[in-house]
């Protein structure tokens, strides 16, 4: 198909006969007069905005200290009636230490049908964006392959605040590595294709629960390593 490559590129060059030969891409100015973030916020305000925007898009938001995380996750799984839970490699072991649900490891060899049989999945994230209520997963150790947060019907995502929270889309992109596959999640799967009525969960998880977890106050005894 090499000839088509040359043909298309030659057409592009002919089509651009009006562009001065000496013009370099950078010579065509792009003014970036837009904001890096929309407003100045304290850490607590940013976290609150994240929680508010997540909830606005129908994610269920929970807040806890690190020491309360294992119990909270166990409760959430129980309440959802989950008998099995997918766990990416590298998810901190304590997070699911209190769960009764059977743990299923994220393996390269598992088939989509096997994933479909699992009730819930627990992951961390790479970055969360307050202004848009978005979680970004980048396949890091606590997050696993892209498909595990897609096929099961219930996703619990843990966000470490404040370290993993940024205000805006520009600040998030700065932190992310484009060579990794990224999944941006803003609320559960949804469609508005039928008379614009919003319905959750056509294909992705119908329930998205987000746990904002803060470190325990300094000096507190470390009961959960």
């Amino acid at each position, binding site marked *: 198909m090499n000839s088509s490559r040359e043909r298309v590129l030659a057409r592009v060059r002919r089509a651009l006969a009006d562009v001065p030969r000496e013009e370099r891409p950078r010579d065509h100015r792009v003014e970036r007069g837009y904001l890096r973030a929309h407003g100045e916020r304290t850490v607590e305000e940013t976290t609150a905005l994240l929680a508010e925007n997540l909830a606005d898009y129908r994610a269920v938001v929970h807040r806890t200290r690190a020491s309360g995380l294992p119990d909270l996750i166990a409760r959430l799984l129980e309440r959802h009636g989950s008998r099995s839970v997918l766990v990416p490699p590298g998810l901190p072991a304590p997070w699911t230490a209190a769960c009764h649900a059977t743990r299923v490891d994220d393996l390269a060899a598992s088939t989509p049908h096997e994933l479909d049989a699992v009730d819930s999945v627990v992951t961390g994230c790479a970055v969360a964006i307050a202004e848009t209520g978005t979680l970004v997963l980048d396949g890091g150790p606590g997050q696993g392959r*892209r498909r595990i947060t897609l096929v099961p019907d219930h996703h619990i995502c843990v966000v470490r605040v404040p370290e993993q929270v940024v205000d805006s889309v520009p600040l998030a992109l700065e932190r992310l590595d*484009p060579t990794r596959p990224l999944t*941006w999640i803003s609320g559960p799967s949804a469609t508005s294709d039928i008379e614009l009525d919003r319905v959750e969960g056509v294909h*992705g998880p119908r329930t998205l629960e987000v746990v904002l977890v803060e470190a325990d106050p300094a000096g507190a005894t470390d009961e959960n390593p």
Partner: protein
Amino acid sequence: MSGTYLGMPAFPRAARDAVRDTTLRGNLRHATHTIRDKRARAVAELADWQELRAAGKAIKDRTLRHLDHYLVRLEEAVTAAGGTVHWAADAAEANAIVTYLVKATGESEVVKVKSMATQEIGLNEALEAEGIRAYETDLAELIVQLGEDRPSHILVPAIHRNRAEIRDIFDQEMGRWGRPAPEGLSDSPAELAEAARLHLREKFLRAKVGISGANFMVAETGTLVVVESEGNGRMCLTLPETLISVVGIEKVVPTWQDLEVFLQLLPRSSTAERMNPYTSTWTGTTDSDGPQNFHLVLLDNGRTDTLADEVGRQALRCIRCSACLNVCPVYERAGGHAYGSVYPGPIGAILSPQLRGTASEIDASLPYASSLCGACYEVCPVAIDIPEVLVHLRERVVQGGEVTRNGVKVTLRPAKGHAAERAAMRAARWALDHPGALRAGQRLASRTRRLHPKRLPGPGRAWTDTRTLPEVPEESFRDWWQRTRGGDR
């Protein structure tokens, strides 16, 4: 473009039929007004919207002015990341490449995420002819596919269907394509979505080949971006072993950082959300995560011809947000099908005649599918001056002139029967060529109201047949804007 839309009646007749269809008009009116109002609120949340819009325009212009440079960089980056890049000068080539790639996998079915590029080239039909079944997985696209219908809106392709119609389509057709609709299916959106979930899941879980488009391609890194709501995109992009993405060459942006502009402009402009539920980015292939074979098919199919037109080139900035459809009074009444193309509404009226040329009746009529009210320009997140291009294309239809077709310069002959419009078009052209005079020109239009026709020419005729042509307003939009909002800038 494909044969999908050949045999379409030209805009006037199609629009006249659509205008008589009261169900369609009711559905469309409800939809466009709902999205329009929500969008205005989402945009108002960002104080720097105009700066983002200016940056979006400038980034796209930079890319288009140096498209060869960025395409070559993109190719290098995708290849380095483990993908394979193919180039297709036209629809037939693109279809041949995809067919070949699918056959090489030994599969006879593929799952597809909604893609306008593949609709444009008629890929599903081309695959079907080779014995390969393509399943559309976006809910609206599924409705369209099962109903043997055509999409009528960029964002919500089945917007012309109401819930009772959708129920009937699912009930009657799902069984022929796979898992049948559940017994006693009602027309509640939740039940209909559940039926689609079950029907499609069976296909996702066994699919070996996925086909997608992309919203953006980053030249610097070789990253592709797909923006969606349902998760069907993520299914198609991550479960199959082979992924084939067919993307128009104009979708490239220079750098990773540039996404910060478009990922703010697109969701708010299209679905009126701060961010759409899912965005996926991928760069070539990743070990044991997602498809292990990735093919990118770069599609020309009339885009370089469009690029060759210095006025019309700006249509290639389009990020397919569909905001211009929702504010267009002609679209609202005529519906998407009347445009006879996968690109309906104002953007379709300038893009289709450029991609396909103006030889056919429908394409020659499209530049007239507008009242030139300017709402589409005001709303466009990349500031495409659609009215300017419309007038330019009308002039081309009326006066003929030099254009590029399939990479070759040809001289068009003037269309017959448009002589009366010629003078008016020249006047409009003059005004648009002299930006400083535009304001004055619009006032002039106001003052010469009694000289304006009672019926619009071309496709607008069908519209004016069923209503009186609105008076040219006393005050032009720009004047009004200056007076009401512009003052505090």
